[in-house]
């Protein structure tokens, strides 16, 4: 559920070079009297970006294209307290990842309703992050399916990794965990497959890098 703080008026700066789109955004935002557009500028290099104590800055990811990262960095420098929302027509995981990696606080696909859009802005202004749930959901599902097939180790496998890293043989691990040597061997085989490694020494390296052992 999205959080909101309707009592506070949010100060929004819209960065939009196309006037008719800027006017459309103003019309949509006008549905929420708690959101006030304090400035509309053509680009992030406009000095007004840092002069208006904005809570939120709205960037058009489609207009910015390859300049998105630089634009977000410029917003951070000019208005460090403002949160940056990226609008886009694109529903691809790569575009979402790119925006978040560039430190955007929200990635919003442009097919919203006015009510949903205003709720997202309020939520982001109050400290939450927002990623379009259709893209984020698909990413999480893919990740879950991947880890189910090859990915992350189970609790038992992590336990065995720790013991391999401590230098124990399969027989010793079996004795420690009350498992047969053959069962331990199966677990080790799965661990090798999941981690895409071929030697016990690699397991120790993985254990250290992943923080399983210090």
């Amino acid at each position: 559920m999205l959080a909101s703080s309707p009592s506070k008026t949010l100060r929004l700066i819209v960065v939009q070079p196309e006037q008719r789109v800027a006017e459309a955004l103003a019309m949509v935002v006008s549905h929420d009297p708690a959101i006030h557009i304090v400035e509309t500028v053509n680009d992030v290099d406009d000095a007004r970006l840092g002069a208006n104590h904005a809570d939120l800055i709205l960037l058009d990811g489609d207009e910015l294209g390859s300049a998105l990262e630089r634009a977000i960095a410029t917003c951070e420098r000019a208005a460090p307290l403002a949160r940056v929302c990226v609008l886009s027509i694109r529903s691809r995981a790569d575009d979402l990842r790119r925006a978040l990696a560039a430190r955007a606080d929200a990635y919003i696909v442009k097919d919203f309703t006015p009510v949903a859009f205003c709720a997202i802005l309020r939520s982001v202004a109050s400290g939450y992050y927002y990623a379009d749930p259709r893209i984020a959901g698909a990413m999480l599902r893919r990740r879950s399916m991947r880890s189910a097939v090859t990915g992350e180790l189970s609790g038992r496998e992590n336990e065995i990794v720790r013991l391999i890293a401590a230098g124990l043989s399969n027989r010793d691990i079996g004795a420690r965990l009350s498992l047969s040597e053959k069962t331990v061997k199966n677990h080790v085989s799965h661990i090798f497959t999941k981690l895409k490694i071929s030697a016990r020494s690699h397991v120790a390296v993985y254990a250290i890098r992943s923080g399983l052992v210090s």
Partner: protein
Amino acid sequence: MAPAYDERSVVRTYVIEPQTTFVPFLERALGEAGLDVVAVSAGVDSERIALAKPDAVVVDVDFVEKGGPNALCQVRAAAPHATILAYTASDDAAFSAICTIAGTDALIAKSSGAGEFAATVRRTLAARRRTGRSRE
């Protein structure tokens, strides 16, 4: 500066119309506006749109699957340089604003006659070319 819209130039037009009964009217109105309809589909097929390389795309935003604004986003992603026209029976200003944000260049009312439809299409094509956003 981008050249003004030339009524003699060929305008390859892609129509997305889930209601097949509207298709003959759209084809006639677009023909009157001097546009060549190169493809008609009932929904957004991004791959087909990209392959068609249309100069203009007409989208019936009232009936398309997943809603008009979503369709417009997909069309704009598939044809970034095309002039996109949203065909709608809605006169709701908020819906119009959302369609504009989602990528349409203009909305055409379903109540428009063929002449008015054609005039809106021509005006929009010319405006998009003036701003240098269309493929020249």
